[in-house]
């Protein structure tokens, strides 16, 4: 059981990294990774929202959705929107400085497809409550990792002598592609342990 949970965590975090192999959460991935500090904070807020969403999605899937399957998407997105609203109020009360630093990207977590994707994947796979939360933590840490790596690379690349044509967005895509290639290397991780 514990081995399985570790496997779920590592798989969501590294092998099936949400951003780099599922292409989820690309907007903040390209939007806020101009500066390392902002990327780090947004990643942390993401982990929080994802964990709560995973728990709530499990509750909904178990106790509500068997009777109204067509409300699945709407109920998930409402849970996410309310959680984001809650986190927003919490951060504004506890740390106004962080609130200002995150700016528009805080409410935009609502339309971060990684969060809705997480709720859908976790319920599609029929994870229990604990497994769902572990899965959310893994995915959140993976997202944070991708954001931080990308921000560090872009801070370096901003100073590098790069051909004028690929400067800007195109360069970010090439950097992301190389990162994604590197993460494919994790595919063999734990191979012997599971099979």
């Amino acid at each position, binding site marked *: 059981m514990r081995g399985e949970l570790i496997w779920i965590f590592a798989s969501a975090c590294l092998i099936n990294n949400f951003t*780099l*192999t*599922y*292409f*989820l*959460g*690309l*907007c903040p991935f*390209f939007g806020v990774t101009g500066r390392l500090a902002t990327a780090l904070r947004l990643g942390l807020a993401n982990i929080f929202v994802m964990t709560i969403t995973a728990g709530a999605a499990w509750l909904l899937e178990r106790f509500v959705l068997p009777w109204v399957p*067509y409300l*699945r*998407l*709407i109920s998930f*997105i*409402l849970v996410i*929107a309310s959680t984001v609203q809650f986190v927003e109020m919490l951060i504004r009360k506890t740390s106004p400085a962080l609130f200002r630093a995150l700016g528009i990207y805080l409410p935009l977590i*609502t*339309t*971060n*497809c990684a*969060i*809705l*994707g997480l709720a*859908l*994947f976790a319920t*599609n796979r029929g994870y229990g409550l604990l497994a769902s939360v572990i899965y959310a933590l893994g995915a959140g840490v993976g997202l944070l990792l991708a954001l931080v790596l990308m921000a560090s690379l872009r801070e370096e690349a901003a100073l590098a002598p790069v051909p004028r*044509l*690929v400067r800007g*967005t*195109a*360069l*970010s*895509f*090439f950097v*992301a*592609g*190389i990162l*994604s*290639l590197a993460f*494919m290397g994790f595919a063999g991780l734990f191979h012997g342990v599971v099979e």
Partner: protein
Amino acid sequence: MSGPVRESAWREFAKGWWRENPVFIAVLGLCPALAVTASLRNALVMSGATAFVLIGASLVVSALRHVVPRQVRISVYIVVIATLVTAVDFALAAWMPVAHRELGAFIALIVVNCLILGRQEAFASKNRPVLALADAAGMAGGFALSLCMIGAVRELLGNGRVLGLRVLPAAYEPWAVMILPPGGFFALGLLLTVFAWLRERAEQRRRAEQARVAAAARSGGGAP
């Protein structure tokens, strides 16, 4: 329809295809643009589903624009979009089960495609249904165009085929990486670089033309 309305509707329709292309210029809706474009067929299905949701949501939001209170507008948009996506999801599951299985959760994830919410907030909520329809159709067209371009590049380089038909000779060694996740990033980066190069060439040609005209005017300046 009166002349000016038809004219501006045409303008709203035309801008989405290229000049304000959602993927290549505004860099919106990237998640589906990269996730489902390993083959051209999936890109086409995804484009159709997104177009349906975008056009339907724009019409509804535009028709309700005087009714919805400002404070809850985003929630209303999301609920409208989620309802349409649920319909598409069930329809595809019934009529195109293979494509539905391959696209998986990405059909449901149309809900959080920032392109759709962005058009509601930026355009449909402020304009009459005719213009909103034109804008949504143009943006959906631009989205489909960019998805198909990315899908075609990835399938061609990664497989030597387009839509399952062999295009490159059998001796061509496929770049398997283009079908894998990193290929999505590389294909989009490649396309953006090519566009930047084309734009720069057009700009250079325009500047050379201007310089030639200016030089001709100067040398001809002494003549009466």
